[in-house]
């Protein structure tokens, strides 16, 4: 080790060595570029006709949303027979066609639907459905119902497919406590955060000083070759966090606000996403979470409240994007791991089921109803039969919204759905 270097020389030299010899992640330098001109990197690859700055927001409704009480077949006797206490009364529903209607809790979304800014894809599922939360959620995240061993998520595989800005950690931003499998990528890209203020490493706790500590932090966390996988994973995660911290907090600071959001955790997540979009963070996919849809008992009030949270949050988010002038750039895709059993149980709730509707929101889509409402009498094991494979919805979004090749990510054979 060279002796007699000054501290500053050491740090400078040390960092150069990090950058050259110690496998400095290339995203650090790219990120620095991107920070001065956010969409420069995006110019590298693109598909004609698809704007580069489009964004996808995925909303996960965890627990298994009761599709039948969300989009209600209000003229169907079989529905009312199967659900003597839980069915939404005809007089309360918000009609969208002669025989389908929204739950009254979705009033704010009915407005979006009427404007053509919402698509409902009915009867979405997959073959041989699993009724396990964990297995089914994994299937939706990996887009792999056959259980070939797929280690990464469908969005992560999109990041790995060299999309524009895919070499920055902030290509995917999850707002929530744990990084979803859907976003896990071989390249390790994607960041997770909940509170932008806490999204920074605090240096200089009355020690040798913040600047020196920052420099040593980078030295101690820089990835090195041939380290065990877990340490390598920790170093990459730490460096991803470190290089994204200022970007994310800077973007959030630029937000002017002015749109009122409901006082729910879900709405707060969407508001944070709106802040990052307003701050022109170079992110392609955001991820937000709702939980609590596992309504085995006393479903009525709980489900109404959840649908209200969903609708209130999405409607405020949409207003915000319109005010920012970003509504055309953003598509929101909402899913749940399964729907629920057609017949209610004895607890005023419903047990795990199968097919259910998915929801898509955005100014740039063709609103309306897609697919067929599954039959309530031709059932498989008491459960609805799906008409549209969820991978067709993913393929549509990848192909027509993000301009990626879905065949590489999902495999072939998934027809597009007409909402884009």
């Amino acid at each position: 080790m060279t002796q007699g270097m000054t501290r500053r020389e050491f740090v400078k030299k040390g960092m150069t060595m990090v950058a050259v010899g110690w496998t400095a992640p290339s995203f650090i330098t790219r990120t620095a570029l991107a920070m001065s001109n956010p969409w420069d990197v995006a110019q590298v690859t693109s598909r004609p006709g698809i704007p580069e700055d489009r964004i996808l927001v995925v909303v996960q409704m965890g627990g298994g949303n009761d599709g039948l009480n969300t989009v209600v077949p209000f003229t169907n006797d079989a529905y009312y027979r199967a659900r003597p206490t839980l069915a939404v009364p005809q007089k309360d529903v918000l009609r969208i066609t002669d025989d389908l209607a929204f739950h009254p809790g979705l009033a704010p979304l009915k407005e979006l639907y009427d404007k053509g800014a919402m698509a409902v894809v009915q009867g979405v599922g997959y073959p041989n459905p699993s009724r396990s939360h964990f297995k089914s959620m994994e299937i939706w995240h990996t887009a792999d119902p056959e259980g070939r061993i797929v280690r990464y998520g469908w969005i992560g595989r999109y990041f790995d497919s060299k999309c524009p800005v895919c070499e920055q950690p902030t290509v995917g931003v999850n707002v929530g406590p744990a990084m979803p499998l859907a976003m896990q990528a071989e390249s390790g890209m994607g960041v997770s955060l909940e509170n932008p203020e806490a999204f920074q490493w605090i240096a200089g706790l009355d020690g040798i000083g913040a600047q020196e500590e920052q420099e040593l932090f980078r030295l101690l966390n820089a990835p090195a070759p041939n380290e065990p996988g877990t340490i390598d994973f920790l170093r990459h995660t730490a460096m991803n966090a470190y290089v994204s911290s200022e970007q994310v907090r800077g973007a959030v600071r630029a937000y002017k606000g002015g749109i009122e959001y409901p006082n729910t955790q879900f709405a707060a997540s969407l508001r944070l996403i709106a802040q990052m979009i307003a701050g022109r963070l170079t992110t392609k996919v955001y991820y937000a979470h709702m939980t609590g849809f596992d309504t085995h008992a006393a479903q009525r009030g709980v489900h109404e409240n959840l649908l209200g949270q969903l609708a209130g949050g999405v409607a405020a988010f949409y207003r915000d994007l319109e005010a920012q002038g970003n509504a055309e750039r953003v598509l929101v895709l909402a899913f749940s791991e399964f729907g629920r059993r057609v017949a209610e149980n004895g607890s005023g709730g419903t047990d795990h089921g199968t097919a259910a509707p998915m929801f898509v929101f955005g100014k740039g889509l063709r609103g309306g109803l897609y697919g067929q409402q599954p039959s309530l009498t031709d059932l498989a094991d008491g459960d609805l039969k799906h008409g549209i494979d969820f991978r067709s919805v993913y393929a549509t979004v990848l192909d027509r919204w993000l301009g990626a090749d879905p065949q590489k990510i999902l495999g072939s054979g998934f027809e597009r759905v007409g909402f884009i």
Partner: protein
Amino acid sequence: MAAASLRRFRPSAADPWDRVKAAHLLNRAGFGGAPEEIARLASLPVEAAVEELLNFEGVPESFPAIDFSALHEMYEELLRARRDRADEAALRRVVQQINRANIVKFQELRAAWMRRMIETRRPLQEKMTLFWHGHLVSGLPETRVAEHMAIQLELFRRLAAGNFKELILAISRDPAMLSYLDNNSNRKGKPNENYARELLELFTMGIGNYTEQDVKEAARAFTGWTFFANTFVFRRDQHDDGTKTFLGRTGNWDGTDIIDIIFEQPATARFLPRKLWEFFAYQSPEESLVQDLAEVFRRSRWEIKPLLRTILLSEGFFSQQAIRSKIKSPVELVVGAVRQTGAQIPDEVLVRATDLMGQRLLYPPNVGGWPQGRGWVNTATVLLRYNFSGLLLNGTMPGALRRRTVPAGVDHLIDAARVRTTGDVIDQLVDRFIQGRLDGRRRWGLLRAFGTNREDAPWRLDGARSQEQLRSAVHLIMSMPEYQLN
């Protein structure tokens, strides 16, 4: 023929029982400890060290129970008000009062558990209690009665290393669980499948070992299993006593029979041992090893303690595949840091810190419990874990505590009399915090915190500058990937 990794660990000159292994044992079978504690364990033969941890029943321990008497009075008041047909508004007032009191008690219970994990003289009992909380999952918001969770934690402590079948029967009758998975409203004619499904999928057998029809039949068998106040009640009038066919066996089964049949399945013998191995040793164990563990488990008629003994004394447990290979859970990180340093931080603040890092005690993310391993770490939580050192050093942590409390001294973290060079002080810090080796580059980085790049540069603990250097070094060590591992 046992797989190599389950064979009894025999220390040798090449592979000694030393402080690194003693620290590993205490980290995994407990929550780590200060260097003196590790040194004491290392001075015992490895079998004695493991037996001391395993046979915790004989170690005296007393922590004050939480007082729920005020809540009992409120519940009685509610019963009275209902009986007297009190008006809506009066009833609502009592219910709101009860809800508020429960929230306070939940916080008290969380803080008391945190304190207990820090101070316990039975670390393995508390570690297993934490394991059971993440395996047989209940909690807020579905379980709203704080006392039910206190009762469940006591069950987990009582059977921490007891009989698994007995624990499964007890948890099936546990009020917190009955309300968490809705079995309290599982009635004849229209069964609720929630408990039956998770009993099979998550608690005993694992997915793929039963059919959807088995779930439905098991749900019927558990109809009428409910509770009143704090006690299990079997309601015969709500129980379906028709014939059920479960896992190929037909009869008029009730929940107890279902559990009997579950414990006849080969999958059940493998399921828990695999999870315990992953909790204590390493991820994705070899199938032959799981098979051997299953054999130990089956032979002992589902006793946990012999299983733990086999794991903790095995070659595999003390192998390089296991040592310092696991990412600490937030509770392990926080409790471990307090035990390593003796820092004085209010329990509620420590609870808040683990909440932020993604492990909210008594508030699990879902019935599957917390994700393990890499699931603990993402860009947000890695920064929170690093910033946690702020609580120890100057009493602040973004998101947890802004106002400074007690700026902690750091002198006691090193034995100043034994320090002559910068290398010495780093050796002591690494011994306390990491208990492993640091590679040359990282060690060099720590030298720089002491203003040198030489191991043999003289260093003494005197004056403000040396204090600052020491604080920075601790801050940096706790902001390293190496510190995140057990």
